[in-house]
């Protein structure tokens, strides 16, 4: 079966939940679903920007999930201006797991233009 890996950047509170459950859950508060990035570079850039905007929340953690291409078809695919390709898992697909928590943050790749 073909599998794909998607990357998600999480806050410390979401990380705590993942460590306990091993899954992505919908937090209380009425959010609609969860965004994932197709590339780890886009996730790293997102984490850096989030930290720059909300430093009081502490560092963000990269996580990933590997799912089948059949499950992926249930996600919404979006091109996000300035961010790259993202996938949206609606509420109905959650919880999702198992989640891999990255113990490190890769260096953001830069390209000559």
């Amino acid at each position, binding site marked *: 079966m073909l599998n794909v890996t998607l990357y998600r950047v999480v806050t410390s509170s979401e990380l705590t939940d993942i460590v306990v459950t091993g899954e992505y859950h919908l937090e209380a*508060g*009425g*959010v*609609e*679903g*969860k*965004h994932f*990035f197709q590339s780890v570079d886009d996730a790293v850039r*997102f984490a850096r*920007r*989030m930290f*720059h*905007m*909300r*430093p*009081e929340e502490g560092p963000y953690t990269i996580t990933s999930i590997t799912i089948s291409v059949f499950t992926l078809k249930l996600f*919404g*695919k*979006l*091109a*996000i*201006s*300035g*961010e790259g*390709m*993202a996938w*949206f898992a609606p509420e109905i697909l959650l919880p999702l797991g198992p989640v891999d928590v990255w113990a490190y943050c890769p260096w953001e790749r830069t390209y000559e*233009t």
Partner: protein
Amino acid sequence: MKPRLIFADEREEVVEGLQQEFDGCEEVKAICLPPAQLRRLENLDALYLSLPYAERWGAKPILYKAQVLKTRGKEEGMPPFVIAGGAFHPDQMRDEKYELRQVITSVFDAVETFNRESPEKILTVGFWTEISPLQFNRVSPKEAGQIIREMYEDWIQAAA
């Protein structure tokens, strides 16, 4: 009343390039400010964010449109609203200028609809240039400033 637009960047050369094009248009400004301060600016009613950044306020994956979402305001160090957008069809051919025009148009439309339908009003919208189509890889600050100013003035004229 048309909202004022504030574009924040920490690079002086970027702010200068944008502001040169905004000169004489009091409602559109570029300022040198980090995003953590931009979001706490007094009198800022809304901050533009692309969809993943606005997930916590319930941003939905809507293509080509912007959505106004309520925050908890000062309690979480945010303006009262965020405007979430910037989503395109993944197979569509795009370039930076197209994306800039499309995002700015979608923000104008969302603000106009919100101000018409809500007792609360959005009168000042902030953009952090790093979370926007303003990445300056292929569009210079000057070119981006020209596009934004033209669009803003067209919008004012259309409403007059």
